[in-house]
């Protein structure tokens, strides 16, 4: 289904005492992909700052700015229009043997190697591999991994932290979308399936009217390479992402796609207030 969405993503920081300087990077501009067209986008910052842009190693649009006047709040607003469609894959599937090939492993080495966020105990990696060994189709192997993730990790916020690794989330058995994505990526890589982390937005409503606004959310999911990249959302048990998913950034793990990061000097910040408003425009 083809449609258009307007997304307004605001992040508000309030500081207990004045901040006198800060350096910030924002990754909040949706990408162009095979099923997503970026029609327009803008980022606004208050207090006012000069904004600079670059495209990073992963092709993500980055906006950065620094502030040198005293301030006690910081608002970042990212507004965009995107046209979305359901991904139309070409149905290319490799055999597990083909994915074991040296050239294949080398070409995808970036998405096969563990990162600090996607470490899991080696025993678990071996177990997972043993559990999929009998399956001839790579899709069945991926499905098996997704079943393991949803069976061993339960959605609950406030247990893990933004810095938690896949191993830590599995250890406590609870996590948020970021943890589901890291665990799924770790297990997929452990069975030789290249996997990457996707950050973006999920539209919460299946059949909105044109002009109707909904409160959406920042979200994270996963792409696996099975002959082509396919998207899946382990925290919602969705085995194929669709036109409800707006892609902002892709990378090896959360570190590569962090929506907002920076360094500031001055007072402590309270947790940011984040609002994502998504409106159907066509």
């Amino acid at each position: 289904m083809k449609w258009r969405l307007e997304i307004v993503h605001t992040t508000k920081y309030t500081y207990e005492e004045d901040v006198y300087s800060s350096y910030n990077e924002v990754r909040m501009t949706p990408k162009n992909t095979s099923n997503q067209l970026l029609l327009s986008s803008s980022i606004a910052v208050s207090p006012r700052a000069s904004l600079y842009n670059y495209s990073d190693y992963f092709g993500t649009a980055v906006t950065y700015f620094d502030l040198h006047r005293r301030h006690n709040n910081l608002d970042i607003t990212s507004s965009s229009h995107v046209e979305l469609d359901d991904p139309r894959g070409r149905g290319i599937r490799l055999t597990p043997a083909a994915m074991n090939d040296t050239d294949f492993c080398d070409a995808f080495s970036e998405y096969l190697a563990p990162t600090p966020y996607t470490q899991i105990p080696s025993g678990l990696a071996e177990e997972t591999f043993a559990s999929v060994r009998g399956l001839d189709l790579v899709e069945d192997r991926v499905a098996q991994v997704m079943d393991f993730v949803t069976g061993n990790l339960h959605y609950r916020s406030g247990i893990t932290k933004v810095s938690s690794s896949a191993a830590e989330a599995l250890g406590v058995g609870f996590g948020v979308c970021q943890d589901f994505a890291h665990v799924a990526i770790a297990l997929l890589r452990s069975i030789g399936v290249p996997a990457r982390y996707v950050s973006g937005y999920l539209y919460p409503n299946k059949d909105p009217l044109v002009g109707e606004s909904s409160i959406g959310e920042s979200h994270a999911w996963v792409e696996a390479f099975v002959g082509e990249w396919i998207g899946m959302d382990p925290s919602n048990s969705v085995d194929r992402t669709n036109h409800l998913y707006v892609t902002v950034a892709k990378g090896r793990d959360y570190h590569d796609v962090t929506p907002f990061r920076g360094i500031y000097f001055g007072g402590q910040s309270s947790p940011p207030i984040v609002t994502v408003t998504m409106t159907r425009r066509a």
Partner: protein
Amino acid sequence: MTSPFDLYTGSTGAFDEFIVNSNAQDENWLGLAKSIENLGLSELKRRAIEVEQTQSARGITFTVGGLERTFPLDPLPRIISYDEWNKVELGLVQRIAALEAFLDDIYGSQEIVRDKVIPKRVVANATQFSRSAAFPLMEYQMRITVAGLDLIRDEKGELVVLEDNLRTPSGVSYVIENRRAMARILPELFENYEIEPVTDYPSRLLASLISQAPPQVSDPLVVVLTPGVYNSAYFEHAFLARQMGVPLVEPRDLFAKGNEIFVRTTKSSKRVDVIYRRIDDEYIDPVFFRPDSYLGVPGLVNAVRAGGVTIANAVGNGVADDKLTYAYVDEIIDYYLHQKPILKNIETYRLEDPDVRAFVIKNVDNLVVKPVDASGGKGIIIGSQATERELEEVKVAISSNPRGFIAQRIVNFSTIPTVVGNNIEPRHADLRPFIVSSPDGRYVVPGGLSRVALEAGSMIVNSSQGGGSKDTWIIKGRSRPRVTTSFAQSETASQSQITEVKESAQ
């Protein structure tokens, strides 16, 4: 009179630079031995101690295990012939040119990976491959402004490359200080030998840094950025800043604003155009690397990206001195320069191949195992000198992380006569030459830092692990060993040589 060299026999297995050259009637080495004989070892030592005391008083130190000490200078210089050095110099320039092209490529379109000359994983999975640095430089900027390679002379007498240091190599201040010290310890020899000067280094470095300033700047401000007085090489940072006549700054003296870098001064702030930085990548900008680092300058990487400032060396060079990348340098030279390598590598085992890995694990007691991303000799296991437990640990480490290590054969590298107690004994020594690159060309310091392992038989020469050093002499043309000639009788050319050395020794 008996010469202290009479009892000197060199060492077994290794190429001894004095024995081989004196047997070949090399006039320079024989002249050196003759001078020491005339002088007497005790007088040589007396002079060396006197010079060392003044060095110590001037604060020429190196921190070892938290303790400050001088980097002991052995008063016997190492001599390398001009002809051999010419070849080495060409080899160094070739190697750095290729590695510069390699860095430009892998932080750009990665053609060398697409052409399958070097596997993607070797680059992408290197811990020092810096995705934050994956942007093209401006045409006036270099990635490897300063390189310090480690060479050793193998059993056959050939200088080969042990390591490439392309991040923040240190030691050049000792090259310059050692030369000044030697001019006071053995002035007789400076009268008779035409030794290639090393004191040009700071002016060459400054010229390179200035040439890399943003082109619209007419009078560029260059600074040396040090982590601070607790850094083991702080002496060198201060030394180079003083020699170049530029400010020495710490991260807290700098700040970024709108893609430019400024240095705080007592009254206001001044724009900085070029930063010669001696801080590791991971501490340079907390926005990108370690947010917990107080050392960095937030905003620096983006200022570099935007062309507002130049930093030397560039961020991300560590991927090119990764020890697995080292194993591909011959291919890298061929790929970018279409040349045959002039300097050889040591045979290196790539442990990702299961058969190679099995071989290395089986023969680990006869090999050296090195972590791919460490410098300063950290984490190196020399199989023949390791304990059983160390060997077991290294086998486990290799098996669980094959990309993290390489193995090499143990090279019984060359020995050089060194003063030990009241004798002259053979000690293993390596050589670290320094190469300064600028958009206009490259300059190689004649010689470099010879580091000696002070314990008999030891092959650990790193200054950070308590080695000593030697002055390295590249002697131009034929020597004129007239050790008894007085200053007044020597030729004009020699006089100007002495004058130059004495001036710089002040």
